[in-house]
């Protein structure tokens, strides 16, 4: 059928494949460099638990989606490829939602709207279109893992800060005493900063992370 000479089989963790995982963590981070997935980074970084559950859900949707799209990449008619990608994301999100509702109802209640919002997470469609449509399933999976972890790291960083200084908690444990009864640090006049809980603060936090990252890694600074 084909007369091409088959290239020697690539090892599973070749240099190129490792780069797929490592690059999105820093040099090509989906949130701070590509500025994708910001909407969810604003919405669910109020508590660490929510950030982790969101990362887990995205990992499943992006991992499975990237592999499905990659396997179908030679079959998908290019004229309807965006619709096909959308169908894949949407059905995976429905599966996540149904599973959460059945087995983790408390988390499902808290995340209710945001799980649906995974569909609109630009990282997912972005990776489908930019990577999975042109690569084999295995590299696609690695790409998904790398990007989700890169996304998750930023979410967790922001949420740790917001949970500690916004609600005085870490993973739901109170840190500075009881706010309502005024014990612990609250008795000497410490106040939680309510602004930190609001969505705009997450934007500041992401901005600060971008600043620190570029100051440390000057090759990321674009020239004008």
């Amino acid at each position, binding site marked *: 059928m084909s007369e091409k000479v088959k290239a020697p089989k690539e090892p599973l963790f070749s240099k190129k494949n490792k780069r797929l995982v490592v690059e999105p963590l820093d040099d090509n981070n989906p949130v701070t460099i590509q500025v994708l997935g910001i909407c969810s980074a604003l919405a669910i970084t109020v508590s660490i638990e929510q950030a982790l559950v969101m990362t887990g859900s995205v990992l499943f949707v992006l991992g499975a989606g990237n592999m499905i799209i990659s396997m179908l990449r030679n079959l998908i008619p290019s004229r309807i490829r965006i619709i096909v990608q959308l169908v894949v994301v949407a059905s995976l999100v*429905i599966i996540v939602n149904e599973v959460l509702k*059945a*087995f983790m109802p408390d988390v499902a209640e808290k995340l209710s709207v945001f799980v649906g919002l995974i569909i609109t997470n630009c990282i997912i469609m972005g990776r489908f279109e930019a990577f999975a449509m042109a690569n084999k399933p295995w590299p696609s999976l690695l790409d998904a893992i790398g990007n989700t972890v890169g996304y998750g790291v930023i979410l967790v960083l922001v949420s740790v800060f917001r949970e500690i200084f916004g609600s005085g908690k870490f993973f739901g444990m109170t840190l500075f005493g009881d706010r309502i009864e005024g014990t612990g640090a609250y008795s000497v006049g410490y106040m939680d900063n309510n602004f930190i809980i609001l969505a705009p603060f997450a934007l500041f936090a992401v901005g600060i992370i971008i600043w620190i990252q570029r100051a440390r890694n000057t090759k990321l600074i674009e020239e004008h």
Partner: protein
Amino acid sequence: MAINKDSNGYTFIFAIALVVVVGAGLAAISIGLKPFQDKNVEIKKKMDILAAINAKEINGSDTLDISRKNAEKLYEKHILVDECVVIGSDGKERDLEAFDVDIKKQYRDKNLSWCDRDYPLYVAEVDGAKKYIIPVVGSGLWGPIWGYIAVDDDKETIYGATFDHKTETPGLGAEIKQEFYYTQYVGEKISGGIKSVKDGTGKEVGNGKVDGITGGTITSKGVEEMVNRTLEVYVKYFKG
């Protein structure tokens, strides 16, 4: 390959095949998980009912709040399932199982007038005394609000209340969920109706007034309407 992937025929066939496969898969998952989800909804309902009588699990020296883990056990302990009834707007009992009545669904049904709705009444026992738990449902500013009101065994004084909402504004209308709001209802009488006021007199117990929420007037009024509309039916029933 011989197939032209850009042809209309191929595109159509691919789209149809995709939809059929995805549709069937999702339907199967949904049906498979339904029993688990229904169970969770049921437990949530039991938790809400128990919250009205402020039930706690006492485990040695620890008192534990209601959670999904102990809801079933507490429900069995406190709720007298055989005495729960469903009444109609005329104050007569109806032959239905209280727990199975979905008052939210009936409230949404525009073809069902308020006098045709079913009104379930749960009977609970706390420290040897009987409490009557009345579910209420109404409209807030953005969407549905609901709650449970527990009445003492004199069938007149409110023993406890709890409210919840779907989409009220956080910090404003959504505050009906908070303790400071719903504990105002404790001690009020059900027969005279309960007014939502703005002058701060709601703090006094037993004057038939509760303080509304600043910036949440429409939600507060929604709670007022929901509570009074529903309590009227039960007052009629309690008086026999």
